[in-house]
């Protein structure tokens, strides 16, 4: 046995082999988060003539394990902005606290104009870009929905790289593949926004949530949905998917020629 102080606290070489001293090296490159752990799936949103509808389900997955089923991923910032979070839940919570402290500081200087959705999107995009530039990204894809300074509908995204987008309809994660094409059928361009009512937009988004539940293996049938318009924010956090279509399974027999 080696009783030298240098060997204290180290596994025995004769049992475990020589100790890998690179573990103690601090000079090498610092590595940060390489992947998210507890994750939320898609967020989807669509503008309509008076505002924006945004939705996300209430599931937080741990790999393929549906670990937490009560995670609310839409955050109301004030009466005209809602942020939807896809990706890592711990980073979502960090951003939630960051927005909270931002709101506290905003409150100190009593200006009469509160932060609008456009301001908040600019801020969050810069936070995301700063973190990716530090090689320590916040593993999220955000949708910022609400009203701009002219009280016009505003919808934009910011992702873990700090990339930003704006469009009449947006979707993150699986939703970008599955929901976005459906949303674009009704809202192909900015001018089409004027033709869509709140009710139509809500119905459209709910339909997309259903498709996502059918086809996204990391989704669930409980979700949150928010409507932002001049009247403020209507946020419902315990919605259940309705009018699902499963009964046709009865007619499905075998996988080709079988009929019984």
């Amino acid at each position, binding site marked *: 046995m080696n009783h030298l102080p240098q060997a204290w606290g180290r596994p025995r070489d004769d049992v475990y082999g020589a100790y*890998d001293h690179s573990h103690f090296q601090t000079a090498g490159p610092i*590595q940060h988060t390489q992947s*998210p752990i507890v994750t939320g799936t898609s967020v989807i949103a669509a503008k309509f003539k008076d505002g924006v509808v945004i939705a996300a389900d209430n599931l937080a997955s*741990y*790999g393929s394990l549906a670990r937490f089923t009560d995670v609310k991923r839409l955050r109301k910032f004030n009466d005209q902005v809602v942020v939807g979070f896809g990706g*890592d*839940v*711990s980073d979502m919570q960090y951003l939630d606290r960051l927005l909270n402290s931002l709101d506290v500081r905003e409150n100190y200087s009593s200006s009469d104009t509160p932060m609008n959705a456009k301001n908040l999107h600019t801020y969050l995009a810069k936070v995301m870009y700063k973190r990716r530039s530090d090689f320590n990204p916040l593993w999220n894809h955000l949708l910022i929905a609400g009203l701009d300074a002219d009280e016009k509908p505003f919808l934009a995204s910011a992702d873990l790289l700090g990339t930003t987008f704006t469009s009449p309809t947006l979707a993150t994660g699986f939703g970008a593949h599955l929901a976005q094409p459906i949303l674009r059928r009704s809202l192909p361009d900015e001018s089409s926004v004027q033709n869509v009512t709140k009710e139509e937009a809500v119905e459209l988004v709910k339909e997309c949530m259903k498709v996502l539940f059918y086809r996204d293996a990391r989704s669930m049938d409980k979700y949150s949905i928010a409507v932002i318009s001049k009247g403020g924010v209507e946020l419902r956090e315990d919605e259940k998917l309705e009018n699902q279509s499963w009964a046709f399974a009865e007619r499905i027999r075998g996988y080709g020629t079988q009929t019984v």
Partner: protein
Amino acid sequence: MQATGMLGEDGIHVDMNHLKKGEVNLGTSIMAINFKDGVILGADSRTTTGAYIANRVTDKLTQVHDTIWCCRSGSAADTQAVADIVQYHLGMYGITNNEPPSTQTAAAIFQELCYSNKDQLSAGMIIAGYDHRHGGQVYSIPLGGSLHKQAYAIGGSGSTYIYGYCDSYWQENMSEAEGIQFVKGALQEAIKWDGSSGGVIRMVVLTASGAQRHLYLPDQAYKGPGKQ
């Protein structure tokens, strides 16, 4: 330094190289539940290095304040260090603010440590506590450092085997006896199916009357000796 773990399509793969060679790992079954009068924490007692059982009577239930406890899973060294730091903070809080810290305060500090050091830690913690104002509360902090308030929480490698058991048998507002039976039944299943869990079942019951330890031994079919 290596990443903490890999998230594959079929679940988390803990990167065993990250656990420094020979490091002690709590391949574990831990849980905490709310019941009518407070909370119950429970854990198995197996600690392994690879397939070798380094300790067969481990105490994974750790006190961080009078009636705030935690269950530790992941690296033994990491979780002990985190628990020690939280214990220090809560001790200071109690003295400087002339009132005991709430379970929320404990959960917040655990979360801050687990989140801001996520790159170097492998720690999965469950925090459970009781205080007169808030009653019993259970919080879960999984690997990335997120914080989840739950009715009951399960964790560690053994927990994956008992999601079904717990979801089926869980009831809100159970009596103490029912709560103990629930925890014991769940941990017995976890120990049965998970090679990294085993040994005795330890529990701590936290209520208005303080902390009460329980012990259940495999050679007594986990029937006793019970309260300590």
